[in-house]
Structure formats: C-alpha cells, structure tokens
C-alpha cells in the first residue's frame, strides 16, 4: 500500500478550502444583477385558494415582480413528478396527484408555496410577501398515516379515494400464514418509525440565470444529482430542452437524501429568471427547510415473527402504512417498498416473508429518502423482533441471532435480494469482543450502585447498497437506470482529470477517487483532479445516494482506467518500438517485457498528444476514455453495532456509555473517511432513537418547526465511538467495495432501543425515547410494585 493509494488514510484534498472559509456553496455564488426570490407560503395545512391579490405587494420598494401559480399554469410549466412506478397488489398503478411548483387552487400542507416575490433584496422580498393577500377556505386536515385511510378522513386529492397511493405487497402470504400456524412461538410488535427532518446544515438554495442572448438557462443548486435534476426539469417539467439547461451543484453542505429530489423552488427560480430577465436566487431559511425539505421515515407497522421451539425463525410478516405527505416526492414511492420490504430478511435465513405496504397522502410535507431510506425501517423491524423474541423465549439475544445467521452464499432471500457474500458471525464476534460483552454483567451491577439501569443492545444489520443494476431496478418500476459514468482525461503533461457522475457533499470523493487513480496510474495524488457536479463538464451521471459512489462510481473509474491503460500501451509500443503485447505497465512505468526499455507515464501521455511516433492511421492521438458502468448486483454491507447505555432511574435520561460498531464494507479506500461516515451515521440513528421527531398537530401545523423545537443531536449527547472492521469483498464490482455511507444510520436505532428495553426491562418503547418517555415507562413498570 502506497502512502496515497487504496487503503491509506490520506488527509482530504478538499479540506483546505473549507477550513479557510473558501468553500463555494450555492448561496456563495453571485451573478451580476442578481435578484432574490421570497416565497409566499400557506399557513394552512389544507385549504382551497379562493383568490390571491398581489397588487399591494407589487408596489412595495424593491419589488420586481410577484408571480403566482396561475401564471405558472398559463406558461405550461409542468408538475413535479415521482419517478418510480409502484403497482398495487390488484395491478393498478400508483395514484400520483398533481404537484405544481406553485399551488394555484388548493394547498395541501403548511409551507405549500402559492406565490413568489422577486425583489432586489431578501428583506424587501419579505416585506412584500407580507402584503400578498391570499383568501383561503380552510379545510379539515389529516396528518396521521394511521388515520389517513379512514372513511371520514378529509380527501386530499380529487379522485384519489381514501388518500391511498398504493396497496403493495411482496412475498408469499400463503407460505407465511402456514408457517405461522405451525410455529411454536410468535412475537408481535407494533412499531412507529418516527418522522425525521434531515437537516443538512446547508439549507437548500437555487440560483437561476437566464441568458436571453443564447436562450440558455443555468441553475446552481444544492443537489446530490445535478444530471437527474436537469433531466427531470427538462423532460417532465418542460422548463427548457436538456441541451439549453445547465445544472451546477457546487460545494453542497450535506444531503442525507434530502437533496436528491427536485423541488418546487428551483423550478420557480428558473421560470422567474426567464420572466424577469435577471438572475434569481433563493436560499432557504431553516424554518422553510423544516416545512419544505422532504422528511424521512414515518412508518406505522405491525410485525410478527414465527419461530420454532429452538429459536429458529420460520417466517416474518409485516403490515406497514407509509406516510408520503401531501405530494409524491421524486423517489418517495420506492422507499417503503423496494428499499424496505426487500431487506426484511436481515442477516437471517428466513424461509418465508410477507409484507404489505399502504402508502398514503396526508397534509404534511412530502416524505422521501433520508439516510438509509427504507433500510433503517426494515432493520428496525427485524432487529426489534429478534431481540424481543429472544427475551420472550429466554434465549440470549446474540445466540438467537447466531442460530439464524445466513452462512452460505450466494443466498436468495424470499424478498428479491440475492446476498452475494458476508460473514455475519465474524462481525458479531468481533463486536462482542470489542464491547467486552463478557464484562457487562459486572458493569451492570456497578451502574446499579449509582442509581443507573444499564442495558446492552445489539443490531446485526444488513443493507442493500451500490444502487443498482439498471435492468433490475427497471423491472421494479424505476424510471431511470442506476449506472454511473466516468471520464478519465490524461493531459499531455501526465496530470489527470476524472469527470465523475457521482457527487460529493461531504463524502470526500476528491480524495478517495484520486487515491484510486494515483494507485492505478502510479502518479502522485496531487496530479489528479476530480471534477463533478456540473452538467456542462460531466456528460451524464446518476449522482450520490444509496452508498453508491464507491461501488458504482469508482467502478466506472476503474473501467475507464482499464481503457486508458490499453490505449497508453499502444502509444508506449510505438515509443519503445516493441509489440503492444510485450508492454507491461506497473508503478507508473511502461516496460518492454524482459528488457530494461521503459517509458514513464508522463512521457507516454505527452507522446499520445504530440503523436510523433505513430500515424493517424495507426492510432488516434489523445488519451481520454469514458466508461458507463452498470453494476451486476446490489452490494450488501453488514455488521454488528452494540450499544451500552445507562438509564437514570430518577430522570429517565439515557446516557450512551459505549458504542461499538463492526462493519463489513468490503474494500476500504480510505479508512479515515470510512470511520467518519460511520460516526455520522450513528449520530443520526441515535438522534432518531433518542431525541428527533417531527410532529404535526391535528390541524397540520408543524409543532417541531425549528432547531429550538426539533432536537438535533449535539456533541454532549453522544460518546466517542469504537469502530472496527471485518472484510469480505463484494464479488459484484471490480474493487470489491460495498459502501459505508448509510450503515450507521441503519444499524443504530435498533441497538439503542434494544439497550433501553434491556435496561428497564420492558418489551417495547417508542422512538424517540426521550427522558420523559423513558421516565414515564419506568413509572408504569414500577407502579405494580408500589401497589
């Protein structure tokens, strides 16, 4: 391993600009003559718009124009769409309601935009927005997914009965029912997977610039996948032909899924820029972010596990209601279906699984993928069921897991996925050693002497990442292919630019991708630049989510580098006057086999461009190659997290005293970055388990609409983490990578809740397990004793 190659903890190339305040996020970009957009948003969760009067607002200082949904419709700007078709069990297609970028006749959630003020400054825009008069006829709202399908629930979209988007299922019900009928033990759980607000620290932003001279539109935005944004905004929304629209996602301050999607504000900024013939910028307030960013999770589930007398799992069944909010966000339909039910086998050999999912509209913000997307929900169901079953049957939770682990690969689960490799015993064993599970009983006794109830919880999770083979996702309803592209440009001086369709928003691609190129070409890492996030530079790409940038994005780079090597060998053969087949490439040097004749990579690069050693008929000049890599399977990162915590008997406050994570991510490019991804994921999962939760009141008002009301994990809420690795290579991509971005968020909620229930001796407690919730549970548990 070289100091900058694969496996080295190289310090990040991108850090200098961030630690010196020179990052360029969307709001940092300015264009001459820039105006500011301020949205007028509905204060009601559900209302008809009777009229909108913008006349007073238009006369306010600094106002350039005030635009409404009626004008948007007149200009034939298309609706936002959901790009993944799900069919109900009766074969009918999902029911996607119209989602205009500005509501013209009806609002369906608080924060729905009804008009936009274009002004010289944000302050002037806000003043004018106050003067827009909207006459609403307020309607009753429904916010609880469990109530959305009730006969008396208000109907949100015309022609969509019972607010039901689809009633989907997966698996063989008959087999499952038979297994349950024969089971010795059945564990049942009711689970609410709490609604979360992603809260990337950089709020969403959009800057649109229309060039009347060329009829070109440029959009800077906070996107995880600028090419997909361009495609949707062009092909479905009809803003501009694809070749007349450039989307640039510069430095992006965190995404966690919430910046995958195409949002109304970027559509409106583009449209408004063309109308006012000036650049239009919008930057979200955090308050707007709470109301309008796609939220995550929000499942209500009843789940059951059937086991034989020895604790062997026979079957699993689950019925889930998934809240998709007021409108279907870009990939919302896939999250509670193919990203969820397909992972219900966990790490276990479960012969039969059946899952039903109803997706519903409510008068709340749209819900879509948030770090893990479906897989955290699945893991929580499986890992809670297994834990509770173990305790009910008097079997050690680690032992019950071991009895059911899949140990032979490939393994076909009953829910589509074919696991290609892994060693679940290895990660459990290593985690148990690192966490000193043997010493737990003593630590529990010691804690009790200090008024603390100590608990230990496991989560042996699996996820499907490296999303995904295009044919496979196409057959499941995806509107896009999920390959990735890479272009490797070798310059005449031997430096290299890699243009990638992946997009970094904290993951460190400028470093890890350069490590790969440095190792493969034998050139200094400083000589490699990674270019991403601009549709004018990178021809096409599918972006970053689903832990796919390593397994898919880097595989594309490998394929392009393969082609570079082939072409460079041809050039070297002419230079060294040898047969192409005799040229060997190693450590940045081309050598004629068995001789001392060689040429350095830089010399070969130069010769490829000056083309003095070969004719155009023999070889095309230049050294640039492209690859579109389509994966052959998902990847299956898996591992074991163990949470050890104390519950304060007096206050119910939970303190995590030790966190152990042992993950199998396959090949690791940069362990420092991988560990950082694990840390961040655990923090988000612990946040979900202990403190985060988005709540709407019965009228559809978001009660947790700011960082003063929605509890974000802070430094003192978390411990330092103990992170370890096991490694089985993924056989499904050339580097053997599996992906690490989501694991922490997928594994951790179940580990926390398993530990709390272990500590206080209850079967179930809902997330977030706040001090108040835990204290209340403790009182209930102690009540019979008192009586």
């Amino acid at each position, binding site marked *: 391993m070289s100091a900058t190659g694969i496996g080295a903890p190289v*310090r*990040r190339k*991108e*850090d*200098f*600009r*961030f*630690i*010196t*305040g*020179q*990052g*360029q*996020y969307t*709001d*940092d970009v*300015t264009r001459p003559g820039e105006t500011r957009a301020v949205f007028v948003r509905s204060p009601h969760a559900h209302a008809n718009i009777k009229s909108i009067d913008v006349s007073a607002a238009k006369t306010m200082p600094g106002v350039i124009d005030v635009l409404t949904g009626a004008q948007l419709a007149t200009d034939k700007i298309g609706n936002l769409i959901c790009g993944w078709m799900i069919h109900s069990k009766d074969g009918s297609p999902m029911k996607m309601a119209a989602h205009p970028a500005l509501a013209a006749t009806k609002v369906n959630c608080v924060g729905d935009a009804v008009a936009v003020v274009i002004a010289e400054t944000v*302050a002037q825009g806000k003043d004018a927005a106050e003067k827009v008069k909207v006459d609403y006829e307020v309607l009753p709202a429904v916010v609880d997914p469990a109530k959305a399908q009730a006969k008396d629930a208000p109907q949100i979209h015309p022609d969509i009965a019972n607010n039901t988007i689809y009633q989907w299922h997966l698996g063989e019900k008959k087999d499952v029912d038979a297994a349950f009928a024969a089971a010795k033990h059945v564990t049942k759980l009711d689970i609410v997977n709490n609604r979360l607000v992603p*809260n*990337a*620290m*950089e*709020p969403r932003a959009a800057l649109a610039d229309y060039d009347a001279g060329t009829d070109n539109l440029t959009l800077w935005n906070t996107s995880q996948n600028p090419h997909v944004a361009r495609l949707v905004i062009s092909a479905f929304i009809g803003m501009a032909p694809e070749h007349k629209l450039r989307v640039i996602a510069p*430095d*992006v*301050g*965190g995404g*966690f899924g919430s910046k995958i999607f195409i949002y109304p504000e970027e559509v409106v900024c583009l449209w408004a820029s063309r109308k006012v013939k000036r650049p239009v910028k919008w*930057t979200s*307030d*955090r*308050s707007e972010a709470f109301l309008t960013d796609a939220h995550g999770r929000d499942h209500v589930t009843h789940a059951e596990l059937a086991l034989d007398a020895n604790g062997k799992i026979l079957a699993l069944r689950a019925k889930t209601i998934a809240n998709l909010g007021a409108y279907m966000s870009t990939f919302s339909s896939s999250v509670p279906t193919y990203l969820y039910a397909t992972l219900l086998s966990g790490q276990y050999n479960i012969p039969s699984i059946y899952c039903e999912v109803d997706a519903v509209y409510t008068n709340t913000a749209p819900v879509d993928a948030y770090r893990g997307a479906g897989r955290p929900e699945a893991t929580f169901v499986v890992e809670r069921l297994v834990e509770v079953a173990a305790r009910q049957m008097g079997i050690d939770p680690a032992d019950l897991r071991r009895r059911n682990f899949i140990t032979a690969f490939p393994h076909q689960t009953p829910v589509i996925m074919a696991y290609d490799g892994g060693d679940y015993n290895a990660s459990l064993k290593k985690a148990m050693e690192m966490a000193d599970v043997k010493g737990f009983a003593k630590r529990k006794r010691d804690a009790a002497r200090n008024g603390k109830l100590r608990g230990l919880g496991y989560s042996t999770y699996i996820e499907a990442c490296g999303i995904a083979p295009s044919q496979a996702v196409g057959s499941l309803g995806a509107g896009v292919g999920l390959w990735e592209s890479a272009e490797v440009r070798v310059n005449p001086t031997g430096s290299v630019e890699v243009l990638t369709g992946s997009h970094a*928003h*904290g*993951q*460190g691609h400028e470093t890890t991708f350069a490590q790969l190129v440095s190792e493969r070409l034998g050139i200094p890492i400083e000589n490699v630049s990674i270019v991403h996030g601009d549709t004018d530079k990178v021809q096409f790409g599918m972006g970053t989510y689903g832990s796919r940038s390593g397994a898919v994005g880097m595989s594309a780079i490998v394929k392009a580098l393969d082609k570079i090597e082939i072409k460079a060998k041809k050039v070297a053969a002419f230079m060294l006057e040898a047969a192409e087949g005799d040229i060997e490439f190693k450590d940045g040097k081309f050598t004629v086999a068995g001789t001392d004749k060689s040429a350095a990579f830089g010399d070969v690069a130069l010769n490829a461009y000056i083309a003095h050693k070969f004719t155009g008929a023999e070889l095309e000049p230049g050294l640039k190659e492209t690859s579109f890599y389509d994966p052959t399977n998902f990847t299956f990162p898996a591992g074991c997290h163990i949470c050890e915590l104390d519950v304060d008997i007096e206050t119910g406050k939970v303190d995590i005293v030790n966190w152990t994570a042992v993950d199998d991510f396959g090949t690791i490019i940069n362990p*420092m*970055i991988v*560990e*950082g991804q694990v*840390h*961040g*994921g*655990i*923090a*988000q999962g612990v946040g979900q388990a202990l403190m985060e939760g988005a709540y709407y009141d019965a009228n559809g008002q978001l009660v947790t609409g*700011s*960082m*003063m009301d929605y509890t*974000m*994990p*802070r*430094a*003192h809420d*978390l411990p*330092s*983490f103990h992170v370890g690795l096991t490694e089985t290579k993924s056989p499904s991509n050339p580097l053997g990578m599996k992906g690490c971005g989501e694991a*922490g968020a997928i594994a951790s909620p179940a580990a926390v809740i398993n530990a709390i229930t272990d500590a206080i001796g209850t079967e179930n407690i809902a997330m977030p397990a706040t001090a108040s919730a835990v204290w209340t549970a403790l009182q209930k548990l102690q009540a019979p004793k008192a009586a």
Partner: protein
Amino acid sequence: MANVSMTVNGKAVTGDVEPRTLLVQFLRENLRLTGTHVGCDTSQCGACIVHIDGIAAKACTTLALQVEGASITTIEGLAEPGGKLHPMQEAFREHHGLQCGYCTPGMIMSALDIVRRNGNNLDEHTIRDQLDGNICRCTGYHNIVKAIEAGAKAMAK
C-alpha cells in the same frame, strides 16, 4: 440606511446598511466574506460564529450596527497572511473534523473560544459540553472533538 464602520480581519471597512442588517449579512453580502455561514434562524447551530473583539458571537443574532467600531475576526482571518494555517485549522484537517464543511468555520471559531476560556489542555467532556452552541450533521462530533483537543494543544506550542 446607516453607515457602519468596523475592523474585519485587521482591515478597516465601512458600509451603508439598513438598520436591520445582521452582521452575518454584512460580512457575506457587503464584504463577500462567505466563509461565515447561516445554518438556522434561531441562533442554534453556530455556523455563523465569528469573534467580536476576541470573543465568539453568533453573527446571525448580531446587528451590523451593534458592532460599530469593533474588531471582527472571521474564518478568513485565521491563517497567517503568507497562507500558513492556524493550528486549529490544521487540526481539523489532520483529524478529519469536517465532512461537508458547512459547519466547519463556526466550529473552528467556537473551538478557539473554548481554548480562550478553558486553556490548552481540554478533556473530552469539556469540549463536548462547550460545543453546545454548534451543530454538525455529518461527523457525529467524534473527530471534531479530537481535532479541538489536538488543536488546543498545538496552539500552546
């Protein structure tokens, strides 16, 4: 409009602002010092932290006119003029104390204030406790804590 003058990163600056203009807006929009960020609107996240006369303050909750005559240091003013990084900046890079980079300027400015108040030998508990006014969504704080501990030590050298 009102005129405001202050020293920013050692340079005298002046500008005409609306009385309601926040210090963070003045820095970002008038002076184009965009390293100071806005991550929330309730003074919770700390992405906007700068030093006012040497003490950390949230520039999103400070009016530009309030700091008339004051000396402001932003993230752009930390490295030496020749480009040599401040030890705390160096520590954040060395310990991978940042991912997306958005909270980072505020974290570093906050870290320096923790050192000012608590000295160069910081334990994990103190750092975590004192970081209460800064939110990071990427790192889980693990490496930020390590970076601050190391940066504080390096500053004593």
